[in-house]
């Protein structure tokens, strides 16, 4: 009976690792994706897995406030933000493909390389003597962060940059829940409110850019120079 919590923790660790791996695969799928609507849906799926990770950690570590974080992720990132963006895409009539600066095969390989960097960084935080959840999740979180950053640099269109920013934020969230088993609830609430507001404000901003320059290609913003 003494061993039970440890076995449970191991099972929890395996589930979290599996989900984290799926999150990482979806992040790489995002890098290789050309259609913006599918890009948005992949983001929604990634957020869904993130919510499931949060719920798993809450269950196995008896941290009930993480359920709130999981529910908020579900409502905000899986439902609200994708709906908001899909409506924006429909309203702006964006049909064209995403045009990355570095071509897709190379981007995917770079994303793989960034994942390695993430693992190397996370390895220095590894304490094998402490049984706990989420050492792998930390590595995935750092990789998400780096790949999100890379995707932001790599894209020309404002909307896809916003999506990359949000997936980067997913990485931060994953790091927070896997390292500390969740920040205090009030911080989480603030962060989610922040994400929602940011998504709305950026959505309006993208729309305004489009209205002014008749394109969401940010490289055209250089015309502002006097």
């Amino acid at each position: 009976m003494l061993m039970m919590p440890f076995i449970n923790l191991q099972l929890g660790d395996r589930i979290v690792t599996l989900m984290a791996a799926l999150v990482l695969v979806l992040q790489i799928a995002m890098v290789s994706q050309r259609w913006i609507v599918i890009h948005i849906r992949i983001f929604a799926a990634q957020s869904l897995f993130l919510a499931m990770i949060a719920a798993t950690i809450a269950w196995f570590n008896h941290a009930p406030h993480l359920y709130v974080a999981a529910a908020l992720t579900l409502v905000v990132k899986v439902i609200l933000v994708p709906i908001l963006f899909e409506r924006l895409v429909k309203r702006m009539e964006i049909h064209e493909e995403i045009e990355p600066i570095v071509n897709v095969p190379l981007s995917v390989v770079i994303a793989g390389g960034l994942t390695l960097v993430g693992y190397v960084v996370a390895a220095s935080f590894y304490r094998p003597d402490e049984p706990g959840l989420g050492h792998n999740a930390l590595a995935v979180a750092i990789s998400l962060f780096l790949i999100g950053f890379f995707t932001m640099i790599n894209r020309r269109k404002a909307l896809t940059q916003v999506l990359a920013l949000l997936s980067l934020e997913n990485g931060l969230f994953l790091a927070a829940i896997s390292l500390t088993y969740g920040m205090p609830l009030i911080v989480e609430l603030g962060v989610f409110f922040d994400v929602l507001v940011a998504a709305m404000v950026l959505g309006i901003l993208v729309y305004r850019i489009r209205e002014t320059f008749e394109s969401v290609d940010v490289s055209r913003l250089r015309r502002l120079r006097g």
Partner: protein
Amino acid sequence: MTERMMTRLIENAAQLFLLLVLAPLVTGVIRALKARLQTRRGPGILQPYRDLRKLFRKGMVIPETASWIFAATPWVVFFSTLLAGLMIPMVAAEAPLGLFGGVLAVIYLLGLGRFFLALSGLDSGSSFGGLGSSREMTISALAEPAMMLAIFTVAIGAGSTGLTEIAGAAIGQNWRFLAPAQMFAFAALALVLIAETGRIPVDNPDTHLELTMIHEAMILEYSGPYLALLEWAVSIKQLVLMTLLINCFWPIGLQPTWFGFGALQGIGWLLAKLLFLSCAIVLLETVNAKMRLFRVPELLAVAFTLGSLALVSTFLF
């Protein structure tokens, strides 16, 4: 000693029989399922056998420009594929010719067949053949690293590149494909399987009429018995790769050795798993459109990245 040799001989004969007979059936089942899913009636599942019989009876036309390579290719392709098939575990973890080489030998035997096929595409003197050869080589050069990385991931888990050891280590770990490393490796190998067997996002196996064809372009000049040998070899190669995939990653029902009641059970499980994988392939082929040739490297880059992630995560997870 002689008894041991007899056992080996029986194993080899049984697997040879299984490879030769089962391969056209798998092709037939995939075609029939695909037709059903597209609400066509389609040919029956025995059609590939009838095609083979018809082709073996026909005469041959050989291009005037062709050299001995053209005549040698069907034999080389057929027998190298068959030999590769004898080196993989099918019904039991023990591969009949496992003694002669592991997974690397299997991959490069298939590579030998592909090399000759590409040569004969050039040899036939038609411009389509050359196009097909160059495309096939481009794709296989990109698919091979991804395949290697995925295979090495599995081999590290077993501590050996021998397929008998790999399949043996997999027995009893029915749920291990849920581990991240195995999952990445499986995804990478599945993408490579699609590219190598010329399935739809990469190549269309059903048509000779597209300018974008790859495999069919290489064998365009073949007819009669040679064409039959090549078609048979292609379906055996497909069976070999599918079996490799399912026995490395879903070891449920795989037997340690060939004999007794276990062999029947093993065959039953093999058929069930093949049917399942065929259904997955059919679904994938039906919902996807063929990719433009220049997009194929993107798909294989994803496979490569997945393969390298798999290899890395065996060390880190």
